């Protein structure tokens, strides 16, 4: 990993000139790397603290690395540092402007703070204290909430104005900040979670349980049950009384909640036992028994709910919602396999609980290790706050290292304890997914965050395009080659970024709009490069292919070629390699049990025995009849193709060296429009993905994937093929637009015989290229749509459900088919090809973006939402305007010639 880092860093330095803004050097002198890499749990997955900090700081400040005015100085903070500062210096930060509030009306009319400072610079932040004090803001939010509620009751849609949206965002930012920096020791702190949990507990006790328990309590026996119930009642009363007071005493609240938890647990176990007895009992009076059992079911379920809610109440004293969760929790409620959405028990403990909770709450956790974490955190805090000490940086790094090590030790020591927890419905998968991760678990994600690979993708692609642009003037060939190399590097960044995302989420990286756009961009660029440098690669590839052929056949075929015969022994060697691969393929496909659905091998050599009568027999025979040729083809083709590709790595340069590079290179340079338009389309896609605002591009790494789509095998097969086809379509679109530009602005020429006026020569060449790209798009789109149908059949029991996505994929396929057949049949000429490419791209746009964001609905709900309609419509409209303009010019040129021959 370190090697890659170094190499990347070198490249980063080399290209820093182009992207001066990108480097964004962090001026903080402290070493935050250990803090950043510390594993935390948020949003259902384990991530480095860095990612958590970026997400939360982004939500609070509107950007990940905000530039803030503090102590009369403007300083740029990294997300991780800011998060730390909020945790240790809450009082100071209360007065610092950092909550996102850039909207001028919001600032002036509601918050009553100036929109600009005395130098005329726009101010974009307010402080938490300002929000605390602003009565007008609170009233504004209340009005807004009421208006939204009324609208939802009436079933009308409520669109937020810019100012309302800004207010809602500010409120959210404030909420996130308060949750993060929650200090349980502070008596006057707002304990929203605690009060809502308390309401739940009281509701359950008074409505669900107390009436049902009456018959038991009225007997007034001095037994365990009555005692537990009485204790619960008392604890609830105490807590209700406590919550009435202005300042909540933490120690008292802890005491009462602990008492409540204990009593609730006791009560639950009493009823669980009574229920067991009721279900074991045999009684002649069936009706009576059944009634008792029903009663017991009810009481056992409800006392369990009360026990769970009491635990939640106790936790909420230290945990007010989204916060920094640093070690696994010993909480059986959070680890149930069938936890329901009402149970929000967290699988990890947050920093505040570890630091401040009483030993009673941290019962079961190794006390010495908790103490070590507390001490080391105190140390880090002291070093951080003591800004004047000499050697602060070293001390800080050391202290931080100690702290993260202490946390790790605590986290790892909890692991064996978690295994012994009395979890109802234990789930090993869930336990593994919430275990304290091994060292280096977060490294990839930290690297991903720091590297920001997609920034490099677009920057380096832009550099490649600059090379090509220079190539039109000077150093045609060297510049072309340099451009190709640079562009390949750029795609390398994209692939690296996507690879890192895949290692982080464990899903094929095509799970949302952001990832698919990046994937398509890389595909377009790589396809462009492939088509462009094919003349260079072709001789070597051909050689490699022939080399892997069966020795005896080639001998017969290639008597003319001298060089082939000299390779004969090598060919025999290749035969051995092929034989090994054939055996391997047969094993993987027909013997080993690799079927994704888990029953046996992927394909069968003999018809599968069927129990289903005639139709079953027919079915299995057909299946066999199809799979056998496929199997034979695969076994024949792949063992030849794989060595051929490996060999071509050597043979391509070798063949260029022996046969001369000039001719293929000239041919490639002639075809550079492939590479350039591929690069240009990729650049547009990268820029859109990287910079487009709003909900369309959710750049965060996460698990937002709908449950029904969580299947890597089909995701890989179906989505990769489909997005690759979008890539091919986008390449055709780029080529089409280049030729449209030639139609619109190129120099038309006259031909003598027959007398007619023609567009630039390149147009027909380009039409040929477009045709090639569309061919590929059609192939991939057809394959992708069909694999999609097979997935749908496999997963949902239907091939085709007229889901919007399915319909539009079909529309796109048909559009491309019409274009290809139209050209084949002579309905449309070169101009039709260019126009067709734009038409096809428009329908791709609809199938890709439109279905998710304009039609919204259906099962393909990755990254659905709304937003971006206007820019997309403008873009498509402009493109069609351009088509129209070119068409007019083309038509005028042709007509002019007809009127005025010669």
């Amino acid at each position, binding site marked *: 990993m370190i090697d890659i880092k170094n190499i990347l860093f070198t490249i980063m330095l080399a290209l820093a000139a182009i992207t001066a803004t990108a480097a964004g050097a962090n001026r903080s002198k402290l070493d935050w790397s250990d803090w950043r890499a510390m594993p935390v749990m948020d949003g259902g997955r384990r991530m480095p603290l860095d990612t958590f900090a970026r997400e939360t700081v982004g939500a609070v400040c509107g950007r990940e690395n905000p530039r803030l005015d503090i102590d009369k100085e403007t300083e740029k903070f990294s997300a991780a540092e800011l998060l730390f500062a909020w945790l240790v210096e809450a009082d100071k930060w209360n007065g610092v402007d950092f909550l996102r509030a850039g909207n001028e009306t919001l600032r002036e009319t509601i918050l009553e703070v100036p929109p600009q400072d005395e130098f005329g610079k726009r101010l974009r932040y307010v402080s938490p204290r300002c929000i605390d004090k602003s009565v007008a803001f609170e009233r504004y939010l209340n009005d807004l909430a009421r208006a939204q509620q009324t609208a939802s009751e009436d079933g009308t849609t409520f669109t937020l104005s810019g100012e309302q949206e800004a207010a809602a965002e500010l409120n959210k930012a404030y909420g996130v900040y308060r949750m993060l920096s929650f200090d349980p020791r502070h008596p006057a702190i707002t304990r929203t979670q605690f009060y809502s949990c308390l309401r739940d507990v009281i509701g359950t006790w008074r409505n669900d349980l107390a009436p049902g328990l009456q018959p038991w309590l009225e007997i007034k026996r001095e037994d365990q049950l009555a005692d537990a119930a009485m204790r619960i009642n008392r604890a609830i009363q105490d807590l209700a009384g406590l919550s009435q007071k202005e300042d909540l005493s933490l120690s008292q609240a802890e005491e009462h909640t602990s008492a409540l938890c204990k009593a609730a647990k006791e009560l639950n176990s009493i009823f669980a036992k009574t229920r067991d007895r009721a279900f074991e009992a045999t009684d002649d009076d069936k009706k009576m028994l059944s009634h008792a059992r029903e009663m017991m079911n009810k009481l056992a379920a409800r006392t369990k709910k009360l026990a769970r809610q009491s635990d939640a109440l106790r936790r909420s004293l230290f945990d007010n919602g989204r916060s920094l969760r640093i070690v696994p929790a010993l909480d059986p409620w959070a680890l149930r396999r069938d936890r329901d959405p009402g149970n929000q028990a967290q699988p990890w403990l947050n920093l505040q609980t570890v630091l401040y909770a009483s030993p009673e709450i941290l019962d079961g956790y190794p006390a010495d290790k908790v103490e070590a974490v507390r001490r080391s955190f105190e140390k880090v805090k002291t070093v951080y706050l003591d800004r004047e000490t000499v050697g602060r940086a070293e001390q800080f790094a050391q202290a931080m290292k100690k702290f993260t090590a202490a946390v790790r030790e605590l986290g790892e020591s909890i692991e064996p304890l978690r295994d012994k927890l009395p979890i109802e419905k234990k789930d090993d998968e869930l336990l593994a997914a919430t275990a304290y991760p091994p060292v280096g678990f977060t490294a990839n994600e930290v690297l991903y965050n720091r590297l920001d690979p997609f920034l490099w993708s677009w920057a380096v692609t832009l550099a490649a395009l600059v090379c090509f642009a220079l190539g039109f003037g000077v150093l045609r060939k060297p510049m072309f080659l340099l451009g190709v190399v640079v562009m390949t590097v750029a795609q390398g960044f994209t692939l690296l970024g996507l690879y890192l995302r895949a290692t982080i989420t464990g899903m094929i990286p095509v799970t949302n709009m952001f990832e698919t756009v990046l994937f398509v961009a890389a595909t377009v660029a790589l396809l462009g490069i492939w088509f462009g440098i094919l003349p260079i690669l072709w001789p070597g590839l051909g050689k490699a292919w022939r080399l892997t052929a069966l020795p005896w056949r080639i001998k017969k075929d290639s008597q003319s070629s001298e060089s082939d015969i000299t390779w004969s022994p090598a060919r025999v060697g290749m035969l051995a390699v092929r034989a090994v691969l054939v055996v391997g393929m047969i094993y993987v496909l027909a013997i080993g049990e690799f079927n994704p659905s888990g029953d046996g091998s992927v394909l069968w050599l003999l018809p599968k025995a069927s129990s289903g*009568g005639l139709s079953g027999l027919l079915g299995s025979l057909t299946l066999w009849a*199809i799979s056998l040729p496929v199997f034979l083809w695969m076994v024949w083709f792949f063992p030849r193709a794989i060595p051929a590709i490996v060999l071509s790595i050597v043979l391509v340069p070798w063949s260029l060296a022996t046969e001369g590079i000039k001719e293929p290179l000239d041919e490639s340079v002639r075809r550079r429009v492939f590479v350039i338009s591929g690069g240009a389309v990729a650049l547009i896609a990268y820029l859109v993905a990287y910079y487009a605002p709003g909900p369309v591009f959710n750049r965060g790494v996460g698990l937002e994937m709908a449950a029904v789509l969580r299947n890597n095998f089909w995701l890989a097969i179906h989505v990769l093929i489909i997005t690759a086809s979008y890539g091919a379509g986008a390449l055709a679109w780029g080529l089409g637009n280049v030729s449209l530009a030639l139609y619109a602005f190129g120099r038309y020429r006259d031909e003598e015989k027959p007398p007619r006026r023609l567009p630039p020569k390149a147009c027909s060449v380009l039409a040929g290229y477009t045709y090639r790209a569309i061919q590929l798009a059609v192939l991939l789109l057809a394959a992708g749509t069909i694999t999609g149908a097979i997935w749908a059949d496999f997963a949902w029991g239907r091939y085709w459900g007229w889901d919007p996505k399915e319909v539009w994929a079909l529309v796109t396929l048909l559009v491309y088919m019409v274009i290809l057949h139209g050209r084949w049949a002579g309905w449309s000429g070169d101009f039709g090809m260019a126009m067709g490419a734009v038409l096809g791209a428009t329908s791709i746009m609809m199938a890709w973006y439109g279905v998710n964001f304009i039609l919204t609905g259906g099962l393909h709900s990755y990254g659905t939402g709304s937003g971006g309609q206007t820019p997309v419509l403008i873009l498509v409209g402009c493109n069609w305007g351009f088509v129209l303009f070119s068409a007019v010019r083309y038509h005028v040129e042709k007509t002019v010639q007809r009127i005025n021959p010669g």
Partner: protein
Amino acid sequence: VDGQMSLLEGDRSSSVLEMGYHFELSITDDGKTSKVIIPFDPGPFNWEDYIRLSRFPWSLVGRDRGVIYDKDGVTLETLDYYSDSRRISVPEVKLRVAHGPAPDKRNIESWEPVTLAVRSFGGHGMSPHGTGSVGAWRELAQGEIVMFGMATSKAETDAFLDSRPEGPLEFNGQIVLHAGGKKFHFSVDDLEGKPPRPLGDSGMAIELKDFDRQSLRVVLATHRVEKRIDKKENSEVDRTKPVGTLVLHGFQTNLDQQDREGGVYGSFWFDPYASEDKSDDTAKKKIVPETSRAMRMAASRPRLDIIQGHDQKLYYRTWRAPRVGTIAQLPSDGSETMVFSPSAFKTADDKTDKKSKVAATEDNLIPATVYVEKFMPSEKPEIQIRMVPFKKDGHKTPRVKVRLSIDENRQEFWLAPVATAESAAERQGVVKADEDDGRSVSLQLLNDTIELGFGVVLDNFERRLDPGTSRPAGYSSQIDFVQKPDSSGMDSAVYEEDVIVTLNQPVSFTDPTDGRTYRFFQSSFAGPYRPGDPQFDQIVGGNRKSDELYQSTFSVSSDPGRQLKYAGCLMIVAGIVVMYYMKAYFFRRKKTAKTK
């Protein structure tokens, strides 16, 4: 086969519901019943949409409209179809109420919405004598009460408009009655335990049957007075014969029952501030318990009674104990009306009588403004079927309007599929032929179902979430495939036990009776239902030890031609590859032959 199967945990089922519908027509002739299945394909949309969007070539889409069965004098005609519908009770009125000075109507969030409807009970239920309907009663945010009911005749409307009591009210209240166009006032104290009192020359008499101090309810029996000649004395004697009942409330006026047959209409008013029972009967005094007093105070809150008159207009009266305020028409065109204004409750004798008490009632009286946002009048209280605009997803309740006739007797009614029908009337429609014929037909709309040759038992359903969040990570069902129970009632054999069906992981099972292979897919779920929920208590109750109950829905499909479809797909892709990329390889020889 492509359908759905829904199971609760612990349930067993062997039938698969398909998308389509069919009618089941049962013709009974002399005690013999024959059944006819009539397939019915309504198409996906409300039929109204076909007319509304008439530009589309809808004729291409088949749908079974018009006469779909006609044989032996029995005709079934489909008239209309709603792909999604709901039942609403009419008359219905939607009010907007604002307290204090009336805000701007555009500022809709400051107006409190109140929707009130008269619900019919189809001749059964709460009112055995009345129209089989009950009015609506709502409490507003400030504690005022709004009541909505309906009057079916002019006399009843007039009685409402002229229901103001006379003189000071008593603690136990006054009954205002209308009969034969005349108005009568009775004190409850005067009526209690007395024989029937005649109502002028209307030919009716009333008798107080019961006075419930707890719920402030009086029950009156109406009697028809008949002149009989007493033979012994040879003079005319009034004989009374009970004909009907009036139930009047001081608080929940929506539950009032008028004697519509006898033409006696009434209202009940009382004064909670008046001195208690005048009678010296201490036993009676004892009866007024604390709860009754609380009830009286609750009932003395401002109340707005609204009715739909016989002319399908709205009328209202306001009440604030011990006074009736304005009685007038309520405009339904959306114009605002001020109610509960203190001046409306003032009378001339306020100055002298009960000064302090009335003043107390006025002190905290907040005037309110009301306007009618929507009013759906109806001649009689009934349930109407309303179309819900087409929506793509979600649960739908289709309904179809049919005309069923046998010989000359025909009837039009709405039917819903039996599985989703909400009342007996829309579950089954019956038409009888003339009596001498003795034939009758009944009609039901049913889902197409397929009976499998085996049973499926849902053992357990499980939903998983991503750790610490409420985002679903997947759901799965554990099912058993079992033999269908035969007539002997023996325990059925289990074919396959504890099969797990998960999202993305269907399970195949071959029907042992006919060799068809079915695939089971996890499609959706409902629940969890917990102890206390009706679903749980009905299904689980005390039968087994359980905390929650889920319902799991599977898609079930069987497609013997699946392999052929796969073959076709493969050939398309292979064809494209060959055409575009391997043409030279395949057609080389032919070409060379040509050039030679």
